[in-house]
């Protein structure tokens, strides 16, 4: 297993990591048993799910959205399922009850 990894001669001295934010290479989605799903119709764009997510996995996009009732929003919140660990804080904190935790099927 370790044979494919770089040998001591090619590693930087002192185990310095020179790639900031490189944990993005490590996906944590398989920690999840429940999957949060945002109902864009019910979402009131309050930012609380984005605020409280421990993973920073709720993405705030400047992507307009118009509800069926005609309400216009300039932002949309989406979930990056690569990193979501399924803690459920977003659903718990959502004041509009717009996030549901559904069973993860793989």
């Amino acid at each position, binding site marked *: *297993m*370790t044979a494919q*990894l*770089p*040998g*001591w001669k090619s*590693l*930087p*001295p*002192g*185990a*310095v*990591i*020179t790639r*900031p934010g490189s944990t993005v290479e490590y996906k944590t989605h398989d920690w999840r048993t429940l999957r949060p799903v945002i109902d864009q119709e019910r979402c009131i764009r309050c930012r609380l799910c984005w605020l409280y997510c421990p993973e920073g996995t709720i993405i705030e996009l400047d992507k307009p959205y118009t509800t069926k009732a005609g309400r216009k929003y300039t932002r949309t919140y989406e979930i990056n399922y690569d990193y979501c660990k399924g803690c459920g804080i977003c659903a718990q904190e959502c004041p509009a009850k717009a996030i549901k935790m559904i069973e993860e099927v793989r």
Partner: protein
Amino acid sequence: MAGKKKLPLSGNTAIAYAAKAADVDVISAYPITPQTTIVEKLAEFVANGELNAEVIHVESEHSALSAAVGASAAGARVFTASSSQGIALMYEIMFIASSMRLPIVMAMATRALSAPINIWNDHGDFMAASDTGWVMMMAHTNQEAHDDVILAYKIAEHPDVLLPVITAIDGYFMSHTIEPVEPIEREEALKFIPKKVTWRVLDPDNPVTMGPLGTPEWYYEFKRQQHEAMKKAREVFDEATKEFEKTFGRNYEPVEYFMMDDAEYALVAMGSVAGNVKAYIVREARKRGIKLGLIRVKLFRPFPAEEIAEVISNLKAVGVIDRALAFGSSYGGPLYGDTLSAAYIRGIDTPIVNFVAGLGGRPVTFHDIKTMVDATLALDGKTRKDVPKEPYFIGVRE
């Protein structure tokens, strides 16, 4: 180089002058006898504007070395100093400093370890540091103590090395004893050791993570690198001492040989006790026709095994003086252990005997040296199988 001004300096003051000449940026140290006057002198230099450095008045040696690691990681040339219990308290961070490959220089005024508490000299603290991954040197004169600090930065900051360095002197015997020393001036020192950051540093414009978690898939590779860095340190030591001699006219070797050209017997020693042995050789042994010489180990880590084994191979018998004990080991004293293994793996059959002497400031007298020489001579014509399996405890009351 003749005609340069010499100053009467204690070992500690000689070291402080060298740190000043190296234009260190950060001094992080805690008072402990017999090291204290090094940092007192440096504080005086900074107080008088003779040295532009930050002095961190840390609240312990553990923090002294921790702050030194932080400062070095931020790109500063860092100096610290300690002794005995201070070294023991730093122990955890000593491994981290070398593993993080930070070129910190620490002066050590060697002193016995507690208990009983004892402020006098032996090599217990120095030997306790011997497996922490630091390059280690021990001087024998105050001039050498001064020069070692300059050499230390040259070795530590070499991009192929990047290891912290200990420059040691014997507590009191050297730290508080005055000798004539020719100090190296700042300008000439900085030509020899230019201020250049050769290691990765903490900088918001180029962020790096230092000190991560190393899992079993990665940890071993970094230890293997440290072993290699030690080997490089030896190469760099040889280059640096050559350049030093050209620049400053003083020659240092990893091992000093005294009257070894025609020697049949030798004592191996480190630090100030080498002076007593030299005096004994000249005043007693040689007068009695005994072809005795001295092998003084200056560079202890990396250990100059090749040189020592080679010189030992031509001798009839050798005695090793240890000023520390490795309790429960198969050998006795740590210097003996290194000397023995250097000889053994090269198939050398010269009998080598161990003397433990001068613990906790107990003087090593002329009479003690005579006892050691006699015991060494008694092995003439014998092989290593005949060597006593226990060290001789010299100067202890039964």
